[in-house]
């Protein structure tokens, strides 16, 4: 999608169902997100033991909260209210992300969730910025 630009290309891919760019320790197997190369938080292995790993944007909603008070100084970012979810990914890590729904209506702990790219404003060149958010996965009929 040439007319779109990722808000944080280091953190996720540009597919319609974006994967998260995580890390894995070859020494102890610990899988983590966000990625870093300073050293393994679990076992202390150094950067050469840390490999990039694509984490599927699939998981379960652990908790959620709709934020009513938020100051975005730029005025171009997300304005309250918006809803934050804590999602335990099927691949292990738990991540906090903005949800596509702006209220908590219809959300339930235990809901299946999937990653999407959602519009998050425009940059200085007028290009659409998209970022990874999570949406509720409706049960197959």
């Amino acid at each position, binding site marked *: 999608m040439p007319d779109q630009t990722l808000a944080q290309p280091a953190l996720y891919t540009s597919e319609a169902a974006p994967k998260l760019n995580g890390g894995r320790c070859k020494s102890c197997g610990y899988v983590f997100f966000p*990625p870093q190369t300073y050293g393994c938080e679990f076992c202390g292995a150094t950067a050469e033991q840390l490999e990039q790993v694509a984490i599927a944007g699939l998981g379960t909603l*652990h*908790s*959620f909260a709709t934020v009513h*008070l938020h100051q975005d100084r730029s005025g171009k970012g997300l304005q309250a209210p*918006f809803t934050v979810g804590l999602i*335990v990914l099927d691949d292990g890590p*738990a991540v906090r992300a903005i949800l596509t729904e702006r209220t908590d209506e219809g959300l339930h702990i235990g809901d299946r969730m999937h990653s999407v790219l959602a519009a998050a404003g425009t940059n200085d060149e007028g290009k659409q910025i998209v970022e990874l958010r999570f949406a509720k996965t409706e049960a197959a009929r």
Partner: protein
Amino acid sequence: MKKTIRDMRPVYVVGIGLHKYQHMSDTTFVTLGLTAVREALRDAGIEYRSVESAYTGTALIGMAVSRPILRHLGASGIPMAQVENASASGSTAFRQACLDVGSGISDVSLAIGVDKPAPLAAAASKANIRDLVGARVVPFTHFALLANEYMNRYGVKPEQVAAVAVKNNRNGERNPYAQRQKAVTLEEVMAGPPISGSLTRLQCCPVGEGAAAVIVASEDGIAKLGIDRSRAVKVIASVTRTERVYRGAKNFDAELTRETVAQAYEEAAIGPKDLDLIELHDAFTIEELLYVEAMGLCGEGEGAAMIGSGATDIGGKCAISASGGLLAMGHPIGPTGAGQIAEITRQLRGEAGARQHPNARIGLAHMVGIGAVCVVHILQKGA
């Protein structure tokens, strides 16, 4: 062989002082700090020149905070250092003063907490490790997520979480040092502007300015200076730990609290049933429920019912946040942990006036801070 504070020579709290916690004002940090330290010296009945070391817990003021305050008490040349440990800065300064006296390096040491609000970023934000939410998740949303999980898991209603603010503001109304000195009804708490999730404004602590000072002494120091032994309170545990890796979505603050408090119980050779008083990190209402469970006062999921039963009121089984806690007394960062020690000492001496918890013998002070860090002290009357 490793030692705990119980293996060192005994350490006693002999002086406490505070500057009221309040909204940011033109008052300088020097005036805040001096007010608290002078009150602590008067309380101990000693002169500043008897103090042999000083540790200042502070996170937001800037470099080298101690001497610009303490020089105005007569520059005596004593060792001084600042202690920064996020919200637990004052608790950690107190621990350093205890270790100084316990080890025998000093007979009398001073712990101060002082801060004024300032837009200082945590170091972790400069580590160049970004996440998906950035500044859109601040502490109140972190705790709103925990509240949502807790209420769902245990079938607890938002009003039961909000009840913590009613209790703590009722206590704060009787504390002249508190930033919020007004009792509130459950309706008022629930009606307040929503902040995040089920948390309303009165379920979030005020962050202002203030100061707290605590003087600790050895038995030699008490004897040498003729300090009133009957008002001295003994430090029977001093433990600090930091976060490990907890798999999945486990609440790290509760897990860290569980580990740190367990170690403190072992050090003091007591259990949760022995506690008469607790000052804990109730920056948000939900935290009090999570921590009373992590401290073993009740089972998992029973915290809301325990608070609701009155067991944690002043006069109940174990008074929690008798000072008003962070929710009512306030959370000026550096002072908060030292202020907890001042409150527990006042209560154990039986000098807490209108908010006195009867027959208080043993009290626990608990702070967590960004990092995450946790600091726990247990104090005992007389001993």
